[in-house]
């Protein structure tokens, strides 16, 4: 995971609540066994228009052209690293492919009033900063980025602030541990294994408790 601290970029406004993971990355792309290559399929159903009457179930772009009306396809938002949306972003399925697609498209941060729990966790594990701001603050940023696509936003993870050069300044909360991991690009498994002595001790007791083992029989 790449460490991240300060991010300054233009932002893509997506003013909708409840953007679900089926929209972020439709299921047909979940058939792939790789961990990369999802950026092209981010918001697939909104981003591409079909040239034929196909059902779009193949795990590729199919016979499509970019939908010129969709915000990601507007040249003025190219290269943007921040996405702004309304509340309950990332609801629905647990697919981490949603976080991969967002990341691999080039976004490093999402700003919204609230995020769904599993998406929140998946994003953290992929080095994506999620900034929870109030509805009003998000609304202000959505408007500024809509009116002026060149409008730049700065996210400072260390200071936990979101600012712009028009006087916008907001604070966001983040769990200190998650912040530490994002700032340092830390891998979770390694961190857990630092506690292996405790894990061994727990297991030597817990493994006797056959009533909570999946395939349970008492120790002979």
């Amino acid at each position, binding site marked *: 995971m790449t460490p991240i601290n300060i991010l300054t970029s233009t932002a893509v406004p997506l*003013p*909708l*609540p*409840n953007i*679900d993971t*089926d*929209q972020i990355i*439709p*299921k*047909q792309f*979940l*058939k*792939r*066994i*790789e*961990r990369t290559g999802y950026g092209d399929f981010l918001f697939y*159903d909104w981003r591409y228009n*079909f040239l034929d*009457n196909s*059902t779009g*179930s193949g*795990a590729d772009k199919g016979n499509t052209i970019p939908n010129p009306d969709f915000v990601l396809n507007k040249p003025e938002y190219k290269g943007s690293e921040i996405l702004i949306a309304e*509340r*309950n972003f990332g*609801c*629905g*399925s*647990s*697919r*981490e492919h949603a976080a991969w697609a967002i990341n691999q498209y080039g976004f490093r941060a999402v700003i919204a009033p*609230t995020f*769904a*729990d*599993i998406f929140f*966790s*998946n994003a953290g*594990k*992929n080095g994506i900063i999620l900034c929870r701001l109030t509805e009003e603050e998000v609304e202000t940023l959505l408007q500024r980025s809509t009116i002026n696509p060149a409008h730049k936003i700065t996210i400072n993870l260390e200071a936990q602030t979101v600012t712009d050069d028009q006087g916008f300044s907001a604070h966001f909360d983040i*769990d*200190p*541990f998650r912040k530490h991991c994002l700032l340092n690009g830390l891998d979770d*498994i390694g*961190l*857990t*294994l630092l*506690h292996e002595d*405790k*894990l061994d001790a*727990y*297991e030597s007791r*817990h493994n006797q*408790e*056959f*009533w*909570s083992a*999946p*395939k*349970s*029989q*008492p120790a002979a």
Partner: protein
Amino acid sequence: MSNANTPRTLFEKVWQQHVVAEPAGEPTILYIDLQLVHEVTSPQAFEGLRIAGRKLRHPERHIATVDHNVPTTSVQDRLVIADQIANAQVNALRKNCADFGIEFFDVQDSAQGIVHMIGPELGATKPGMTIVCGDSHTSTHGAFGALAFGIGTSEVEHVMATQTLPQSKPKTFRINIEGDVPFGVTAKDIILDIIGRIGTDGATGYVIEYAGSAIRALSMEGRMTICNMSIEAGARAGMIAPDETTFAYLRNRRFAPKDAAWYEAVAHWSRLPTDPGATFDRELTIDATKLAPSVTWGTSPGMVTTIDGTVPTLDNAATEADRKSFTRAYEYMDLKPGTPVEEITVDAVFLGSCTNGRIEDLRAAAKIVKGHHVATTVRAMVVPGSQHVKKQAEAEGLDLVFKSAGFEWREPGCSMCLGMNPDILSPGERCASTSNRNFEGRQGRGGRTHLLSPEMAAAAAITGHLTDIRKWKS
């Protein structure tokens, strides 16, 4: 810190029994008793283990099957899947399970089925356990009084390597459903009503405990339907206290304790229910006697109304954001505000999924279907959730009831619940579905989904439009 005498909730008991370590300033390291594995969210986790040179810490605490990708048309179509990418994904799981020592229930195994069906059927899902799976509907297993939740692929890998997960403690939310539900109201209607009430993010950050006389009166199948859709209310998990109904379901199942061990296990499980006087961060009480059959009209499970209601107008939207979503949903669903729900015609009916693909669901639907025929304008399919359900239904002759009424009778899998396999809606098609999500494109690009109970799905197949089950005369 609470001592042994402080009243505790079901959730707190299960949580405390699984705390491995509580490092200062970090999330709790929680022990995971069982991880369920399927083809879609696991390949990248196995790849991660290989790259890091890691093994599974406890392969015996894993169970795998195939469900999302597999065609449901015929046994032949499943053994070698025509879609090569899907086929490669299933093959990857076969190889990964063999390489890492995981018990795997392949397409034709008599225990194969949707991952959330087989855990309970095998008796692998038990009260008081912690259970995870790379799938959000893992909340289903909470029906047994387990703490069960969906995770992402990085977490799947984490559990494989360490049998633990770093977790911050969720808050608790008890929803009491008191009283007897009226005729025609099922577990599905109860959970749709809850989601409609609290919203799709109404329980974000919480574990819900469903309690009250209406919940206690439910079978395990009904309880699983309720817990299954906890995630549609944003909850981390849903739980129901184990009781005699739970124990009767588990008794004699393949992985359940036997003989004297059974009684010892029941004694442990009986101590799990929430103590009198235990407090929750939030509580809600619902009068079950006032409930009506529910159906979704829009593109989020929270866009729900009663079967005798109408598609809401913009005046019903509480916020500006809701107005925007309503407007978008009218267009996507091709519905006019104010339309009576019963006038909505359907082109397809899907009976199945981990929400309502159980034997009791098929029995209830078959009762409605018996002696009728599917409307000529409708294509209808029944997809049993597991091999076990399929076999049981065939033993009871339910397959014949469905087939002679014009339903397709399929092989078990996720099927049209998410359309990752060949079962999908065409653009513009409208479906009455017993599944759990009505998102745009969920059942196929441009497809329109109405979520409802198995009984009402069956009735819609016959009449060709959404139908109030309370008026049904068989």
